[in-house]
Structure formats: C-alpha cells, structure tokens
C-alpha cells in the first residue's frame, strides 16, 4: 500500500476515491519535482502570506520558566495561523489539476478561513464542512469564511466536530470526485495527504532552524508543538528529524482528563479513520470515541500517521496538557510577551511548565501555530 510510515498511513478509502488519490499523487510528484512550482509557492509565501515569520526570543517567559524560550511566530501569517502555508500549496496544485470546486473540513475554523482565503484569491468555488458544535464556539471564523465567499456547511452527525466534518467532506468528494479538489487541512487522511501537507508546512521548520542558529548560535535542545492532526508539528519537526540531539515534543490535548480528551498517541491504539491507519481513540469494538478539548483544532480522535510513526520509533515524544493548563499558558503569554496565542498553540506554551521542571535551562523553540483572537470569547467565557 502507498504512503506508509512504518505500520501507519496507507489509503483506506472507498474504491470510488482510489483513482482520484492516484491522480493527486501523480500531480503532487510532478509538481514537487519542478523548481517553478516551488518558486511560485515561495513567492506567495513572501508576498501574500508575509513569510518568513519571525522567531521571537520570549525573554520574560524564559525568565518565568527558567528556560530559554523562542517562539516561531506562525500567528503572524496572513489569516492568523500556519494553515495558510498548506492552503496556498494545495490551491496551486488544484489549479494545475484544473479543479474549480474546492471542499475542506475545519475544526477551529483556521483551516476553513485559510481555504476560503485562497479560493477568493484564485476565484474558485469553496465549501467548508464544519461541525455545528464548532460553528457555535468559533463564530468569528464562520463569519470570516462567509465574507470570503465560502459556503459553510453545518455538520450535525456524530459529535458534530472536526471528525464528523472530515467524514462529510470525504462523502462530498466521493460524490463529486470528477470536479472537486479536497483541500485537507492537516497531515491526516489517505496518502498522499500526510506527505503533501508536511511538505507545504516544512517551510516552518526550515525557517526556524536557520533562525535559531543565526540568532542563538546553535540548534535548540527541543522543539515543542501542539498536535491535533499534527500539521504544524510535523512542519516544524521535519527540519530537525535528522538532528538527533534535538528533542521533538508534540503536545496533545488532555482536555478535562478522565477520558475526556483528544490525546490519540498517549491513550489510543492503532486503528483506521479517515483513510489512514494511525493511533486512534477507540473502544474495544473499534468504535471511535468522543473527544474533548477546549481547543477545537485539537478535538480530534486520530492523529497524522507520521506522528504515530515518530512516537512508535521514539524519535519524538508526546506530552499532555489539560484545558486549564492551556488557559494558563494563554494568559501567561498575553501578560509576559504581549501575544495572544490560539488555544491550540497555548497547549504548547502550557507544556513549558512540565518541560522546564525536567530540563531547567534548556533552549526550546515553541511553534506558536496561530493567534488567539478567535478564542477570546471562550477564554472570557461569554
């Protein structure tokens, strides 16, 4: 089977989609081999997205934790998160393939906004599937998508969150496979998506590696990123995979603890969801379990297959941060650095509490994957 990361990954989808995945795989391979494709991608990164994003030395946060903390500022990207990197990459691919109708799933709404944005930019039809629970808690992003000309399609099935939005997007794709490009938002799903999304997000890691060496004189001791599906984490990890001395730490959402969380690697077992085999929160019958996280983008029972591989092969380790610890991280970063992180990214900040106790004085790069404007009403509790 194509797209394996050790025992994980693959293409577990209905037969109707297999030819479309082969077409996509071929188009991706062809594009990736062309310098002109990457030149165009880079041009959008610089002139539209606003890259490179800074690497900010968080001095007051460093003093607070007793660690040397550097923040990779994906929150400063156009549309407010790392999701735009992947959306630009995939829309260029969709255009090459002649697809005029774009569909996407979204949890927090960040990927939905990024997709709606690139569809506006390229003049393409856009439909974003979003669970009704997420629509309620991410109202601002819903309105942004509509302003950008996208149709936000409410999904009521199952738990009405990212998992169900993804299933519904796949169902749309099965029905409209000839005309439609499925612009998946994380490093999940069937091959070639996990590889493709990693390659578009790898720009984060390339920049961060160069910046940390330039600014601090050496590689970091650790790179920390939150993991839902895991696209921001795999993007920043990818540049450090071959640097064995750099510890790679993914932070999963521990929610309220007590079984109500989104920590697939920490508590899941291998299973198949949305076309890929990866760690999955499931019961003993293979039914997918309900998840909870205060961060809609981490409220997902699966995880990208490459993270499962990195966990199983021990190249990366995966820690836990609760809703409350993430909120503490959110408030701290506001007060100490003047930065409001997305609640997803606040999990990576929240992990510094545990990390600094273990590794006092270490130098860490934290991927600040998105900004927190969208979460203000959750934090304030309106």
């Amino acid at each position, binding site marked *: 089977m194509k797209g394996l990361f050790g025992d994980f990954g*693959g293409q577990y989808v209905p037969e109707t989609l*297999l*030819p479309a995945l082969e077409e996509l795989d071929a188009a991706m391979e062809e594009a990736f081999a062309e310098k002109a494709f990457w030149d165009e991608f880079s041009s959008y990164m610089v002139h539209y997205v606003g890259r490179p994003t800074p690497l900010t030395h968080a001095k007051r946060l460093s003093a607070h934790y007793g660690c040397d903390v550097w923040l990779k500022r994906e929150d400063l990207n156009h549309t407010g998160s790392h999701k735009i990197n992947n959306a630009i990459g995939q829309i260029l691919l969709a255009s090459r393939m002649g697809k005029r109708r774009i569909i996407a799933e979204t949890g927090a709404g960040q990927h939905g906004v990024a997709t709606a944005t690139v569809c506006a930019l390229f003049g393409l039809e856009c439909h974003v599937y979003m669970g009704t629970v997420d629509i309620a808690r991410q109202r601002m992003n819903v309105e942004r998508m509509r302003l950008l000309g996208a149709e936000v399609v409410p999904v009521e099935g199952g738990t009405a969150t990212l998992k169900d939005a993804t299933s519904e997007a796949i169902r749309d794709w*099965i029905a409209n496979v000839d005309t439609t490009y499925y612009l998946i938002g994380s490093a999940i799903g069937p091959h070639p998506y996990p590889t493709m999304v990693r390659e578009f997000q790898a720009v984060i890691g390339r920049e961060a590696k160069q910046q940390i060496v330039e600014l601090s004189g050496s590689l970091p001791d650790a790179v920390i990123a939150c993991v839902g599906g895991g696209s921001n984490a795999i993007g920043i990890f990818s540049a450090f995979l071959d640097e064995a001395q750099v510890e790679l730490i993914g932070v999963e959402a521990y929610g309220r603890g007590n079984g109500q969380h989104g920590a697939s690697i920490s508590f899941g077992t291998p*299973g198949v969801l949305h076309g890929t085999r990866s760690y*999955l929160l499931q019961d003993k019958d*293979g*039914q*997918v379990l309900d998840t909870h996280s205060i961060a809609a983008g981490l409220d997902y029972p699966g995880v990208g297959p490459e993270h499962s591989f990195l966990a199983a092969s021990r190249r990366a380790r995966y820690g836990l941060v609760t809703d409350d610890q993430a909120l503490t991280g959110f408030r701290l970063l506001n007060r100490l650095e003047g930065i409001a992180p997305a609640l997803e990214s606040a999990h990576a900040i929240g992990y510094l509490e545990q990390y600094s106790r273990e590794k006092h004085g270490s130098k860490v790069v934290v991927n600040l994957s998105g900004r927190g404007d969208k979460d203000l009403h959750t934090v304030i509790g309106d």
Partner: protein
Amino acid sequence: MIAQAIRNHPRAVIPYVTAGLPDLDSTGRILSALKDAGAAAIEIGIPFSDPMADGPVLQKASHLALQAGFRMDDLFGRLGQWSAKIDIPLIVMSYINPLMRRGLHDTLARLKDGGVKGVIIPDLPVEAKGIHADCAAVGIDLIRLVAPTTVPERTREILAQCGGFVYAVAVKGVTGQRASLPEGLQGQVAFLKANTELPVCVGFGVSKASQVDELLGFADGVIVGSYLMDEVMKASDPAAAAGRALRILVNGVPRSGQG
C-alpha cells in the same frame, strides 16, 4: 455458495440490514422475514461510528444501533443461531476498523464459525493484499467493490482478488436512494461480466421496484440497503415492514392489473 445462491435465484435481490437496530432480537426477526420474502442472500451491516461511504439513512441506522448498545460480542453470539435457521448466505458488511480492532484473522474466524459466508469491506482497497489471503485461509469470500471511477486495468486486479460476487457500485457517491441510475451502468456491468466468472451485483442508490427490474435485465443481482432501512426505522413492526418492502422488490413491477 454465495455465487451459486445468486445464480440459482430467478430474481436475486440482496437486502442490507444494520445489525442491532433496534436490538439483535429484532435483527434476527428481520433476517427471517427477508428470507421468507425471497432474498437471495442477506448483508448484515456492522454499525460503525464513522461510516464515510454511507448516506444519511445508513448513517442514522449505524448511529441508532450504537446508541442502543450494539456490541461485537453480542453479534458473534447470535450469528450461529441465525445461520442455522436461515438457509441463504449471510454476508457481513463492515468498515475495516471494527474488523481489525481485535485482530482481523481472529474476527474473520469468528464470523466463519457463525456461518457467515462472505465479507464486504467498503474502505478496503485492493492494495491491502494480506486481507485477501486472510479470508482465503479462513474460508470466507472477500467480496470486492468496483466503482464507476475504476479503470479497466485496476478492475482486472480487483476481480483477481474477489470472491462470492462482484459488487458493482452504481453511482459516484455514498449509499442512499437515487431517483435515477447513471446511463453508463449497463456498460460497466457488461465489462465486469466479460472479465469474471463471478455473478455481478449492483448496489448503491437502488430503491424502486422499477429500478430492480431494469437492473436484473443485465446484472445478476441487486443490493438494496437504504430503502429497506428507511422502512425499518419508520415501522412499528420492523420485521414485517422489511419483509413487505423486500417482497415488492423481489416480485417486481406487476405486468397486469392486480387488485
């Protein structure tokens, strides 16, 4: 055994039933009613939390069955009783995850012990080669799906690893009733029949007796799921409703006036 049952039936209709809706006692009664109504074989659907190839009706059926407390062990406990009583092939349809959760080989062996003759896995591509061997080792037919998007070269690869019958997916899309079926369907079925000894049955989108009549004109069998489950979920007596609905499909559109 599955192939034979379809070939020997003058109008082979294969109904699909979601297991455990509203409970397994009812499923048993529905199976008997479907057999009495003239089913050629029956697909028993294992409910799944995330049925990505299913439309609204079968999503709802899955969801309700799980809410009602469906468990795999309870199903395994019933299969033997059902297959002893019902002398047409029982086939299990399941997404891959529930089958793999406790080991694919062991799960297939338990199905075989329960008298199940075949298995259909809608999210299992032909590239997953080990599973064909697992099914062969256990002695259960792996029924493969061919889609309208499947190209000829790939079709041959699928047919080489297919048992029981070939499941021709009628529409590009998920399961569920359609007002009309696509025009290229007859050609698709003809191509399949020219390339396999197995019966070719058509499913996805079929709900009307007139569609069944049309399809049986060129296919060996027809699979009906959403339409039946819709009737089952609406009815106060699910078994009677399932039997009544299937009988209409098996008997076909009356050619002369009936009272």
